[in-house]
């Protein structure tokens, strides 16, 4: 039985962290999309790529990533936040979202990502 690999959209404005996430998730068998460093880039990728899951930094250079989180919610794409802030910094309508603190243990991140999927 074969399973097509899961694709993860990575949104992170710190270049070093973004590259590291990309590498680690690729090593763990995910197809990575991005990393996007801005809200604009991320929204563009969401249109052009098939996204199964998403990892979002909460605060990007010019904005927060909440508009993207709302778009993902509308589309039924599961996501989690990776942030230096805790859940109290979330917009009220996004309180349901999972927030993992930085720096993250990649094994935990992988497990949390797989938990987001139904079944």
């Amino acid at each position: 039985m074969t399973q097509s690999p899961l694709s993860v959209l990575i949104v992170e404005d710190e270049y070093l962290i973004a590259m590291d996430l990309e590498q680690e998730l690729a090593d763990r068998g995910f197809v990575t999309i991005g990393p996007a460093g801005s809200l604009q880039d991320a929204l563009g990728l969401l249109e052009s790529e098939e996204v199964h899951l998403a990892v979002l930094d909460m605060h990007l250079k010019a904005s927060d990533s909440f508009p993207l989180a709302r778009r993902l919610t509308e589309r039924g794409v599961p996501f989690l936040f990776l942030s230096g802030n805790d859940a109290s910094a979330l917009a009220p309508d996004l309180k349901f979202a999972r927030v993992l603190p930085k720096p993250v243990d990649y094994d935990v991140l992988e497990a949390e990502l797989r938990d987001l999927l139904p079944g």
Partner: protein
Amino acid sequence: MAALALPDNCVSTSCSDGLRALEQTFQAAPIGIAHVGADGSWLRVNQQVCDMLGYEADELMALTFQDLTHPADLHTDVGLANQVLNGEIDRYRLEKRYFHKDGHIIWANLTVAAVRDARGRFVHFISVLEDISEVRQAHIALAETEERLRRVLNSVVAYIAVLSTDGAILLVNDPALTVAGLSREEVLGEPLWETYWFSQSEESKARVRDAVTRAALGERSRFDVDVMVKDGTTRTIDFKLVPNHDEAGNVHEIIASGVDVTERKRGEEHREMLLRELSHRVKNTLATVQAMANHTMRNTGDFERFQAAYKGRLSAIARCHDLLVATDHVSVDIRNLVTSQVRPYTRGDGKTLVLEGKPLVLTGEAAHAFGLVLHELTTNAAKYGALSNQTGQVKIAWDKVRDETGDWVEINWTEAGGPPVAPPAQTGFGSALIRKSLSHAMGGSASVSYAETGLSARFRLPLHAAL
């Protein structure tokens, strides 16, 4: 006119008994009594008058009342006495000042009437003097106390009002009026919550009204509330209501006071914001350090090479951080940034590094990102390029440029005089960082060329990365 009739059998003996009794009354009366002549001379005084003014009776006989009257009261007193003398009035009463023999002032309540003979001719004045110095003193002391309290009330930093039990303003201090540009007349008698101070929201009106109602029932309360001040902005006050009880234990008025805590509140909010910001930065820095370790690990085969590369990169992050802390955490002069990242790797003869450019200040984020790029360029030059021999030179030039794509800060890194250069066979973490990190989230770009004479690189950051 009613008159007491003397009994018919009044003979000299009984009359003289009567006179003796009158004389005793005159002397023993617990109030000063004097007979005074038309010219104001003392004719007869009782002991009370002597005690009051400090003279012996015979000393007084040589003086007039004018001699002992305070100049400020003299005109009134003499004028009234003349009216009695002329029959214009029967009597007068006056609160006046005398000089005691030792010089101090005596306040007296003076009542004067005239004694006339059967034909109505003036005989002498009869003056009754009551010493009211103590009462006067108490009045003055009370007035002074009131004046002092008024000054205290108007000098404190607090806003203070006294309210009736239904919330009407009975008294208000100057600071409360001044801060809102109100006059006393505008607010006296108005319910506190209906005034300009609380006009900015129905919520605070209702809250104050409710608190006053509870204060009238004896309950104290204290809370922060926003008030309007004169330029239409609001300030936050620490507001307190205290019921004042009368002797029977009933609330008869309410003391309202407030202290401006706007700055304190702002300070608290600012501190919380800074703490959140700091925590966010620290976690991000840790994540960056973790990522840097992972990258370095993937690109170096053994622990010794990892240690050397990682130590260099960690110091590069630390140097960026030092510069940010040394300024205000939001900006870094590009000359300082370049110097701090590159100088540690130069020969120290002052000729290795050439810097060209007008003063230019980068934002903290741009400085952090570009600082790491500079570190990777520098370590590459130290290994293979212009910083690896005794003749090489690195020139770093920066300027603001404009073309059809927009406004940019352009930075050129040019190496010369090093060993001959060939493009690397494979690209590692360092060269990926040099080429991609500025475009990732900064909106910048990078291009690197490997001419045989030396590596050169051109970077562009959007102008908003500079201040």
